[in-house]
């Protein structure tokens, strides 16, 4: 039997291009049936798989500088798939898929202990404190490819895994072995009006994401490209989302424990 080379899907986000508009957030919500409530201003409980953070160099007017950082699930690989959340889940509701590098979330298995939320250093996981309610008629726009979650479970970004499944199914059915780079793209990548997000297979050197991030796969996937960083690199979570910024202060904020280290 032929062993297929494993994919490792990852993302490259150029913070120089990102304008912080929030299109990725809306595209994600529309794609993934994310619910909404009347008051969404408590951001600790507002469910958003993708969130754009505003970073500041904290200098006074007029030297203040601002940058924006979109943050999907980082799909940590850790050491051999031991991502922080996967290691702690008592229900196997979240798992690391070695074939795609995607950290899954299976809602029907989750019983809402929220251990994974405590373990995740990136705050990507959100708990459904409320029942999702769609005003009469609005449930029509729900996407049948993504299951609707209910009160009491944890959810998070899936790298639009359902899109991968669709492409994979079609490829398998048609007997294709190769999956084109643009065949599987996440909703946020597709929507980004600034084209700041690049998505693809980090294991495939033909893919743009590999070329931009230049991951050092023998060294925990560390980026080799200039001005490219990952969030909280020092934790060893081995995330699959790479960021690029020409602003040094922004890169430092990305790993708030290494002040001075990147200068060496």
């Amino acid at each position: 039997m032929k062993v297929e080379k494993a994919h490792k899907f990852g993302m490259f986000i150029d913070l120089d291009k990102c304008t912080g508009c929030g299109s990725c957030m809306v595209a994600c919500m529309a794609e993934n049936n994310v619910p909404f409530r009347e008051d969404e201003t408590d951001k600790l409980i507002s469910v958003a798989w993708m969130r754009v953070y505003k970073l500041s160099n904290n200098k006074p007017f007029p030297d203040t500088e601002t940058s924006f950082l979109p943050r999907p699930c980082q799909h940590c690989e850790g050491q051999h798939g031991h991502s922080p959340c996967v290691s702690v889940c008592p229900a196997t509701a979240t798992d690391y898929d070695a074939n795609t590098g995607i950290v899954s979330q299976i809602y029907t298995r989750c019983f809402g202990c929220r251990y994974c939320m405590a373990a995740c250093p990136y705050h990507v996981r959100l708990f459904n404190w409320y029942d999702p309610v769609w005003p009469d008629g609005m449930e029509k726009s729900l996407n049948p490819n993504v299951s609707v979650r209910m009160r009491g479970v944890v959810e998070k970004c899936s790298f639009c895994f359902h899109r991968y499944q669709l492409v994979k199914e079609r490829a398998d059915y048609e007997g294709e072995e190769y999956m084109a780079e643009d065949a599987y793209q996440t909703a946020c990548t597709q929507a980004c009006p600034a084209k700041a997000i690049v998505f693809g297979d980090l294991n495939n050197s033909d893919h743009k994401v590999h070329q931009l991030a230049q991951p050092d796969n023998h060294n925990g996937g560390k980026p080799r490209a200039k001005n490219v960083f990952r969030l909280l690199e020092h934790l060893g979570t081995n995330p699959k989302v790479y960021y690029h910024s020409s602003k040094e202060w922004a890169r430092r904020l990305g790993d708030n424990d290494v002040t001075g280290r990147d200068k060496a």
Partner: protein
Amino acid sequence: MKVDRRSFLSFLIGGAAGTALSPLPWKLTDDISIWTQMWPWVPVPERGEVTHVTSACTLCPGGCGISVRKVDDRVVKIEGLEGHPVNDGGLCTLGLAGAQLLYGPQRVKAPMKNVDGRLVEISWEGALGEIAARLKELRESGQPHRVACIAGTDRGTVPELLNRFLTVYGSPQFFRVPSIQDTYELTLYLMQGVRASAGFDFENADYVLSFGSGLLDGWGAPVNIFQAHSRWCERGGKLVQIEPRQSRTAAKSDSWIPINPGTEGALALSMAGVIIKESLYNADFVNTQSSGFDSWQRLVLENYDTESAAKMTGVDPSTIAKLARDFAGARKPLAVCGRGKGQTPGSLKEVMAVHALNALVGGIGRQGGVRAVPEPDYIDWPEPEMDAVAAAGMQQGRVDQAGGSQYPHARYLLNRLPEAVNSSADSPIQVLFVSDANPSYSLPNSKAFADAFKKIPMVVSFSSYLGETAELADLILPSPSYLEQYEDRPIAAGYPRPIVNLTRPVVEPLFNTRSVGDVVIELARSLGGTVAAAFPWDDYRSCLKETLGDKWAVLNDKGYWADEKSGSGGQPATFETKSSRFEFTNAEIEAMTRFAPVEPEGDIAAFPLVLVPYDTMRLWNGYIGNPPFVIKIVPDTVLKNNDGLIEVNPATASQLGLQDGQAAKLTTPHGTARVRVHLFEGIMPGLVSLPTGLGHTAHSKFLAGKGVNVNALIGSVEDAATGYEAVWGIRAKLDKA
């Protein structure tokens, strides 16, 4: 059997151990998690056939192409159309949330009549009959000019049908919602002699100087500029942003120059002075293709030296000189103005000063420069026959005095309508149609618009959504949403090429709606005579098809039609002025008031601060109310519960004794509002700033009652030269609540 302590404990421990070893706890946990997820109210979206429909987004003037994903007859997702010349696959927050506008609770589901403040359903025949009767009455009494119409734009078949209706009926009172294009159109007319809209070739420019334009905050065709910005990042293009508050555009710029608001024109003229003095201008263009340079240069050099401009603008003389040298030294520099999203026409002389900067560097018509984009010419209906009543009505002046002796150049002055209505005992407008517009929310001095609409005896709204103006209307004749009907949308929002989009019925209309075109044709028919004769079409769709002619097939196939002749390469501009050259100045321009900073309204002693509104991609502030997903992504530093946050510089806040997050009372000459303080280093001390797009009172519970409508706190300030709306802020004070 005696149960002693020992056997009781053995039983308890043994039982617990046994249960733990059995599958029971795991099974129960599993069952609980399943049971708690079987709530009948959690919807299960049905599967079905997936199709993609090509259409166009009309939610802002930006003109993006969209691809709508459907599952059976349901709209599931809206995505950007790949290969569309404007957005090539990208889409903004509002466009992406379009399905929520289609299915949302803010839709008007049937014709409505306002009976003593309550909206009650009425039949189409009843509603149209009532309007036709009133229109006949006015016409018979020789007052057809007392009918008016406000439309979101004047381009495309629907606004043209409305305008045509008014004309044959006998009224000159057609209004278009104001924008920076008003001033740019006039600038192109005065300096280049052409009737055209201004198009900016951002994509090919390598140094963009923005005088407060929110290029990355929704100005023009937003997605197109976003993509241009990303190309600047790759190729090393520069963006310089001049404005007092660090907007997203300023945050993304290579250089942010804070300036005293309202003085941007002075900075542009002073930069021109440096360019002239140091002979950095494009001598070829200035010598062979321009006229009036000598007298204009004298004016600039005498009045706008860097020292005095520095005093006015707050920008260092050395910075002004550096900006001028960098601008003139760039290969393809481009200067642009129009604050925020460009929804205020602003000061004509400021736009002319910025346009002159482009001319100085030879940027008129050049690749990466400013182009005069001709108005679309596909609407070529025969001149309608006018009867005596119509001819007499058209001779009456406009209520806003546009085109009159005071403001001969202005075409539409919607900002002057409230005053004209509110100041007279008997409203000069008796019937008002409103299409694609929500002036009593979205324009400065919104309260005056609301008062005017209350005073006008019959206001007819064509709105698909229950917005503020629709709520004030006497009759609502809902049109289908943009996903339910055919409509042509020529775009003009600063895009450098002529392009027409076509929306199409992605789904069958959900509600009892009729398109505005159909309503106009029906109304004309019921009036009979020359009015009916001017509308020979059976219905709107046949009118549209006939009008588009050979473009129909292309539009139906691709979703857009772009003028292939005007490619991305630059074309030499044609000047149709008296001199057949670009005119830096001429008699007509000199007859108008000189550039002077537009002063904010209010007394400085009573109102020590200045309130400036800001625009953002996360809040839309026009006719369309933000759907739930868009409100959901508003940061908690902008909206917290129902309180809007006002941006204050920490230095200003400490003078006022205000802390971050503290509640405060904001007062302007037009009213007060409760706000919370958000400390922001990106705003100039002495200024405070609120976003546009909040503070709705209508639409839906997801939008109404959140934050402050800044338009209700701001009055109207006319540009002295044109009469256009030129307000950019107002004096204010902030007290502890």
